[in-house]
């Protein structure tokens, strides 16, 4: 099979995945400032996009082995071929788009792991997967991440509401701008790395690049642009879920949630217990919902999100596995794979257009601006011969 064509397809799909990763994860940082009105929706996604772009260049650390030990590589294990990577990417992209359509904040990394796992199982059987690593690196952190972030943001909310009085709490909006920007920057330094890792893995597998070398400059640039473009396009459905649907967020809660998210992500990445950004951010929002007196958490929405997390790896794994089976048919199988993937992307796009959710759903009148009331239809004046029953008055029926 023509290796050059295959590698080109892998790079193209990896960049598409990077784009979906961007718009899937805008919400992690920007759902709360948009919900409280700390930032205008368009401004918020623009800041997130720039910080993701910058973040992708800041991190010079070589993108680590993308499979993270999940797939046994090397001598006794699987030889990861570009065709398997392609299949894994298709699984990840399709699942990311489906969850976006449903407005579910699910982890893009898990979608990528799932897709690659599915493809690896088809390529080399179940023996290719290290079940223990799957449980300890993915499943247990998925339970611990929202619990940790929820606890932190719950206490932070209690503090914020205990210390400040009602009329002072608008000041939290200014703090929100900084904390949400930190979340964005942290995201940028992490997530574009994954795609760089995948592309580099494919280039190494194809023999274009020596083994053990880091991502090339053009790979870094392309990944940075793709994730920034994805971030700017917004992912408004997920912003709506996280910012509006779980609980109603006030500025103090927004600040507490973002502080908790930033602190948990930074602690996890520096103290050595990896947690998913998406799951941390969702947990923070639930925590602030529980922490404010009078606020309520819509557990139905939270349950739907948790269900989405549970099935992310199996679902993208199944898609990845089917794609891997097709790709084993040879060149035509791979082409069929790509055509089917494009069809899926187009379908999701068309369905999404029917029920659009975009920036306009989030514009809020600035405080103090007079909102013109809706003009009422003029009621026909009661005629002199008519009864007074049209305008019921007190005591009219007695």
């Amino acid at each position, binding site marked *: 099979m023509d290796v050059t064509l295959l590698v080109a397809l892998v790079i193209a799909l990896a960049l598409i995945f990077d784009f979906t990763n961007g718009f899937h994860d805008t919400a992690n940082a920007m759902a709360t400032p948009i919900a409280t009105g700390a930032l205008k929706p368009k401004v918020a996604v623009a800041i997130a996009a720039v910080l993701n772009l910058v*973040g992708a260049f*800041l*991190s*010079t*650390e070589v993108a680590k082995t993308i499979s993270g030990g999940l797939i046994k590589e090397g001598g006794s294990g699987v030889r990861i071929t570009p065709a398997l990577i392609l299949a894994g990417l298709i699984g990840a992209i399709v699942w990311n788009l489906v969850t976006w359509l449903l407005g579910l904040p699910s982890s893009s990394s898990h979608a990528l792991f799932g897709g690659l796992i599915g493809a690896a199982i088809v390529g080399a059987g179940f023996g290719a997967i290290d*079940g*223990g*690593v799957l*449980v*300890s690196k993915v499943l*247990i952190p998925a339970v*611990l991440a929202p619990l*940790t*972030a929820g*606890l*932190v*943001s719950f*206490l*932070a909310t209690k*503090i*914020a509401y*205990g*210390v*400040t*009085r009602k*009329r*002072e*709490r608008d*000041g*939290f909006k200014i*703090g929100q701008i*900084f*904390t949400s920007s*930190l979340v964005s*920057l*942290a995201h940028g*330094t992490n997530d574009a790395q994954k795609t760089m890792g995948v592309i580099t893995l494919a280039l190494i597998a194809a023999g274009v690049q020596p083994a053990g070398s880091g991502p090339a400059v053009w790979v870094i640039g392309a990944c940075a642009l793709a994730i920034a473009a994805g971030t700017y396009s917004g992912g408004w459905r997920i912003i709506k879920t996280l910012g509006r649907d779980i609980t109603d967020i006030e500025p*103090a809660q927004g*600040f*507490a949630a973002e*502080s*908790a998210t*930033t*602190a*948990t992500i*930074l*602690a*996890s990445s*520096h*103290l*050595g*217990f990896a*947690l998913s950004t998406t799951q941390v951010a969702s947990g923070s929002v639930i925590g602030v919902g529980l922490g404010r007196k009078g606020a309520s958490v819509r557990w139905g929405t939270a349950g739907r999100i948790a269900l989405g997390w549970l099935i992310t790896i199996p679902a993208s794994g199944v898609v990845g596995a089917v794609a891997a089976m097709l790709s084993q048919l040879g060149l035509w199988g791979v082409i069929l794979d790509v055509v089917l993937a494009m069809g899926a992307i187009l379908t999701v796009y068309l369905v999404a257009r029917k029920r659009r959710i975009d920036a306009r759903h989030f514009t809020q009148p600035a405080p103090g601006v007079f909102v013109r009331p809706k003009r009422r239809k003029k009621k026909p004046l009661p005629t002199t011969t008519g009864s007074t029953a049209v305008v019921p008055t007190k005591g009219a029926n007695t």
Partner: protein
Amino acid sequence: MTIDWLAFVTVVVGSLVSACLLVALFSIGLRLSDGTAPWRRPVSLALFVVCAAVVLFGIYLIVPFLHP
């Protein structure tokens, strides 16, 4: 299958302390900025400066080549 529970507890404690500290500093800053006594304003400003320092420390942690 091994879970590094010690690392997990460190992460929980670390994030709890840092997030609550930042929120407490900012909240007290807001509370103090709202009052008439002459000492309140400078103290609240100082607290906001400390908050800014915490944010800068966050950036320091995020950007890899600032720390070895």
